[in-house]
């Protein structure tokens, strides 16, 4: 058995320019181009001790190893994105040797070439919208006068018990107000998110909506309302980012996070149910 395996990062068009010197990928090894069948696979040589099925399976259960490997994979894909439009492969695509990689390229040649054509010259931008409901509550907190409540649940009666700060009713009222502040902040953020998505979608050739990220993993503050990917021509990138910033800037309960440019990860699969995804936010906005 071979003590070394091939880790494949991406498929790119033929004639790949040289990669930056000093670029290291998974397992700290140097990625290189392997041209075949009118395509380029970008591969690295990795030790079988870590990347054969058993050890790889075990490693993937280790969050530190996974994080390091994912970042190394992404570093190579990022470097490729600077010079071409790569099709990133799923993490941990491992072959026995170069010949086996060539056979994979051959087997999927038409589809890979077609996808490369479709995406050439495009990059992906990620945009996430968060509702900062804590901020909204802080904003509302100093306005403690009764009129600021707006919607007192049972209007009218203002007995001394209501006014006493320690009373159950005052407590209830404060809590109700906090809940309704949070509620309206979320509504506001949702609206801003929809407006922003509709405006950005107009700049993009294609759009994918991803499930919002779970803060337990992302560690981000606020509630992730929108997690979208936009396929944008490389040269339109500056305008896109600028627009995304502008659209989020006016609303204090909203935080907009732009990431990219990414290789077009979210768009390698042909759009399935595109109408539903792309039209969804706009349709909901009118409801």
């Amino acid at each position, binding site marked *: 058995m071979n003590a070394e395996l091939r880790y494949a990062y991406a498929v790119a068009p033929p004639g790949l320019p040289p990669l930056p010197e000093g670029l290291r990928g998974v397992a700290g090894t140097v990625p290189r181009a392997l041209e075949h069948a009118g395509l380029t696979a970008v591969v690295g040589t990795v030790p079988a001790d870590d990347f054969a099925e058993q050890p790889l399976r075990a490693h993937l259960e*280790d969050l530190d190893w996974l994080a390091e490997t994912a970042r190394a994979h992404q570093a190579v894909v990022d470097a490729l994105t600077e010079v071409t439009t790569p*099709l990133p492969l*799923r993490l941990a695509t491992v072959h026995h040797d170069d010949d086996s990689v060539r056979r*994979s390229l051959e087997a999927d040649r038409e589809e*890979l070439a077609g996808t490369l054509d479709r995406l050439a010259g495009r990059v992906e931008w990620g945009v996430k919208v968060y509702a900062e409901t804590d901020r909204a509550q802080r904003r509302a907190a100093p306005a403690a006068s009764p009129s600021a409540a707006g919607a007192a649940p049972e209007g009218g009666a203002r007995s001394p018990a209501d006014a006493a700060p320690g009373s159950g009713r005052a407590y209830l009222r404060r809590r109700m107000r906090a809940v309704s502040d949070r509620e309206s902040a979320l509504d506001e953020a949702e609206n801003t998110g929809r407006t922003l998505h509709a405006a950005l979608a107009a700049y993009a050739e294609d759009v994918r*909506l991803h499930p919002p990220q779970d803060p337990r993993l992302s560690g981000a503050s606020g*509630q992730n309302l929108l997690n979208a990917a936009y396929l944008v021509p490389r040269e339109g990138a500056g305008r896109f980012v600028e627009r995304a910033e502008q659209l989020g800037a006016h609303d204090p309960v909203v935080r907009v996070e732009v990431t990219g*440019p990414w290789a077009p990860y979210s768009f390698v699969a042909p759009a399935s149910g595109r109408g539903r995804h792309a039209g969804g936010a706009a349709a909901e906005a009118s409801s």
Partner: protein
Amino acid sequence: MTLPSRLPGGGAPASAGERGSSLADILERVLDKGVVIAGDIRIDLLDIELLTVKLRLIVASVDKAKEMGIDWWETDPALSSAARRDELSDENEQLRHRVAELEGRSDER
């Protein structure tokens, strides 16, 4: 490509190469997106316990997640107004209890 690094949110990094993208953003893409070609070492990432238990909430695509019975965002108050109403009425219920309890306690005094 270089872009001006003035993204909202202060620390948010600006361009692919130099930005320390969040691990969640990277995992979301490298685990769930990207082209699948048949390698020789075949591991279904969904068989990996760490990923299924800890990460699949975020890496799973909407449809795939629904297939796996993960549709938490449909009941997540941030994402569905129906769920938010539920949360509100739950909270109201709790508050009513608390008020009753507090008022009961002050009567005893």
